[in-house]
């Protein structure tokens, strides 16, 4: 996209913010791969993408939290470097973070005035209280300046964060997944704020992975996938199914698998399962299904529709509110993670670095993170290091884990190699069921292929596999059966022959198909 074209995008006005060929690399992953983007004054621009698509990295660059490796940033046509939030604010760019950064014991006014250079030295909070009311009125952000932050709901705290930014005269407001903490009513209020900001000529960047919200409030939408811009289009020309398809899109690795045997008898049963999320609401609602031996069951859905809570319930990390979980005759409903593990349920977790491994511990120690308690890795409470090291060396060889030594702290490994360590550990001893959450997310093609091969090998061995993924290609290629989850409910169960990208996209977007 060239400058001339871009300006026609903004109805003749120059874009407020333009970026060209922005690149940001992290070890083992390209978070932003030659990103181009224009944000016009007076528009709400949605950034849509699955977790890890590079949305947060991109706005962190805009707000001066991260410096790009390459590329150019223009604010109102002027090339700039943004090295700190302070510089971002002076350029008129403000960010409302997903996790609020407020001083809980202080009042709203005190929080707003904190670090505000224009505030008077003497009783600054009192001085700006009237202006808080006035701005609140103007943008539909009612909040009592005297209230203490800890007394406020999440929605009200968000208003304080927005006010903080408005006080610094920003012209581009970035909202990082703002609705993830809001009730539907509060979200509606936020959309109204965004519309008013737009009417005042401000630009708004709105990060989300909820299609519904994009359709309701955004003017244009840019879809990111694996760090690249897949498309930028006016919302008027888009529909939910297209967006879902763009978002989960064609996966890079070509998935090809050969399945030899048919699934056997059912052995893992989930009945009428209800699970609460972190905020007490039901995240999983009335879910029932079974898994057969030698079967891969895929769970497709847009992130945040209850997958995480379902996985935690099925691995003993979250106690269900209602329902049953059974493996053969064994009732696992109220058991903890150890009991699930001992029953033969393996788990490749969603958050591999924070849950799947212990960073400072060695590769070898992480390989026995679950088995250390049992022979041959320990006897009478004493670790048997020769056995652990032998197992580690074997695993490194068999799973092609690239590590300097088995004593290297695992945090120094790349994401793909960490995932191989997790797989080696979880598949040791032949689990009955493997629950794999986004197992290839963020991996390069080679590592992703290897993971797929292992999943299929488990199936062929006769294990059940529950594959939860946002990658539709992966789901379609590997699954014997596909469950579609939307707002905590299983809205469809299909065989892969019955499913297509389009149909799955519609179902995931909550459109009956």
């Amino acid at each position, binding site marked *: 996209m060239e400058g001339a074209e871009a300006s026609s995008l903004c109805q003749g006005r120059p874009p407020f913010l333009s970026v060209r060929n922005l690149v940001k690399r992290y070890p083992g992953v390209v978070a932003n791969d030659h990103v181009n983007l224009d944000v016009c004054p007076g528009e709400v621009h949605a950034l849509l993408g699955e977790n890890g698509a590079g949305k947060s990295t991109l706005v962190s660059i805009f707000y001066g939290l991260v410096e790009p490796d390459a590329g150019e940033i223009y604010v109102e046509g002027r090339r700039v470097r943004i090295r700190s939030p302070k510089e971002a604010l002076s350029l008129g760019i403000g960010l409302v973070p997903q996790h609020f950064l407020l001083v809980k014991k202080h009042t709203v006014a005190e929080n707003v005035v904190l670090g505000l250079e224009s505030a008077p030295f003497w009783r600054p909070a009192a001085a700006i209280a009237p202006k808080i009311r006035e701005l609140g009125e103007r943008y539909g952000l009612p909040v009592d300046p005297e209230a203490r932050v800890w007394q406020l709901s999440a929605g009200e705290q968000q208003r304080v964060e927005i006010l903080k930014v408005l006080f610094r005269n920003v012209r581009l407001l970035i909202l990082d997944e703002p609705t993830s903490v809001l009730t539907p009513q509060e979200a509606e209020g936020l959309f109204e704020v965004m519309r008013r900001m737009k009417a005042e000529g401000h630009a708004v960047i709105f990060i989300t992975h909820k299609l519904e919200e994009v359709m309701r409030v955004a003017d244009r939408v840019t879809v990111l996938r694996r760090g690249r811009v897949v498309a930028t289009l006016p919302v008027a020309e888009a529909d939910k199914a297209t967006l879902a398809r763009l978002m989960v899109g064609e996966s890079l690795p070509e998935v090809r698998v050969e399945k030899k045997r048919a699934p056997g008898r059912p052995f893992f049963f989930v009945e009428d399962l209800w699970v609460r999320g972190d905020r007490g609401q039901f995240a999983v609602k009335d879910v029932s299904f079974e898994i057969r031996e030698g079967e891969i069951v895929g769970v497709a859905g847009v992130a945040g529709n209850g997958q995480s809570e379902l996985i935690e319930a099925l691995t003993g990390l979250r106690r269900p509110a209602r329902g049953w979980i059974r493996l053969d005759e064994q009732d696992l409903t109220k058991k903890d993670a150890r009991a699930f593990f*001992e029953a033969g349920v393996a788990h490749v*977790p969603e958050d591999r670095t924070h*849950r799947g491994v212990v960073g400072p511990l060695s590769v070898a120690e992480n390989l026995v993170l679950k088995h250390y308690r049992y022979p041959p890795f*320990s006897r009478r*409470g004493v670790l048997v290091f020769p056995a652990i090291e032998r197992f580690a060396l074997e695993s490194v060889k068999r799973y092609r884990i690239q590590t300097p030594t088995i004593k290297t702290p695992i945090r120094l490994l790349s994401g793909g190699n960490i995932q191989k360590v997790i797989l080696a550990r979880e598949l040791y001893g032949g689990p009955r069921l493997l629950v794999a959450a986004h197992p290839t997310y963020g991996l390069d093609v080679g590592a992703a292929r290897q993971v797929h091969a292992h999943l299929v090998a488990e199936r062929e061995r006769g294990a059940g596999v529950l594959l939860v993924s946002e990658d539709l290609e992966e789901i379609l290629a590997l699954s014997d059966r596909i469950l579609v989850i939307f707002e905590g409910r299983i809205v469809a169960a299909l065989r892969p022959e019955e499913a297509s990208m389009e149909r799955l996209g519609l179902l995931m977007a909550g459109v009956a198909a």
Partner: protein
Amino acid sequence: MKLVPRQNVSPLWVFSVYAAAVAGALFLSLVLLALYGVPLGRALAAIYQGALADPRGFAEVLRRTVPLALAGAGLALAFRAQFWNIGAEGQLLIGAVAASGVALFWPLPGGWVLLAMALAAFLAAGLWAVLPALLKATLAVNDVITTLMLNYMAIYLVEWLIHGPWRGKSLFGFAYSEKFPENAWLPLWPGTGLAWPGLLLAVVVAALFAWLLYRTTLGFEARVVGENPEAARYAGVRAAQTLLWIALFSGGAAGLAGFVEVAGHHHRLLAPLQISLGYGYTAIIVAWLGRNNPLAALFTGLLLGFVFAAGDVAKVVLQVPFQLVGAANGLILFALIAAEVLIRYRVQWGWGRA
């Protein structure tokens, strides 16, 4: 100026930084003494003579090392599991009480009494530490506060015992217990004031704890819980159980320090400030400087033992007021803690781009 985290920290670097910090602080302390009127050379000679060259003097260093290393090794274990035990001082006193109780009221033949005293000290102090761990595991009560508060309870318990039920009948006006029978005394290294079995005990306990931490399933669980509680839950580690065991060992080690103090040096239960010169608090620094490695607590314990003993020498030989010694001790601790920054970070000067 900017601080950049170091990726790999070699033990040699750690040692060099600590050595430089101690040398620097020692020099500042000597300047302080010089300002008071003690010539630099004389102060240096006195401390070298009194704390290093003279066997009796060095025995005093070791005598201070024993309780610091014992309690420090226990704290290293606790801190690894993120059990924030600030209560080693109280646990030490409870150990002293339990050991004294056995010595005073349970006549056992020969060496058995010492064994029973050590066991009682370990168990009583261990359970004293299990109490806050239990509150943390079940009710999520802040362990820093509970362990700290239990110190005061231990202090008043000792005060009450020596003024009340355990006060020696043969003593007039003094708040002590009776002297222990002689078979409840630890032997001294000939010609010194060092109860050598205490030193042996400290070495054994530090080695045992290092083995526990790195070679047993309990130690593995403690490290997993301490480094990443979320991964611990995922791995099926029952964190509450781990915490209770670690608390028992951690408190127990401090209790053994209390046992050594009463059985080795005082031979009776006396006022809390006479039993412990704040060893339980200094042990926090011992553990911390040793990077929470129980074995390293032996060496950092020795370092701080030397600081304590050098202070005594200065007081006695150089006739320096104790306030000045306190200031010098403070300087050394301050330098050691400040040096920690240099171990973890590299300093980058100038305003060049990051």
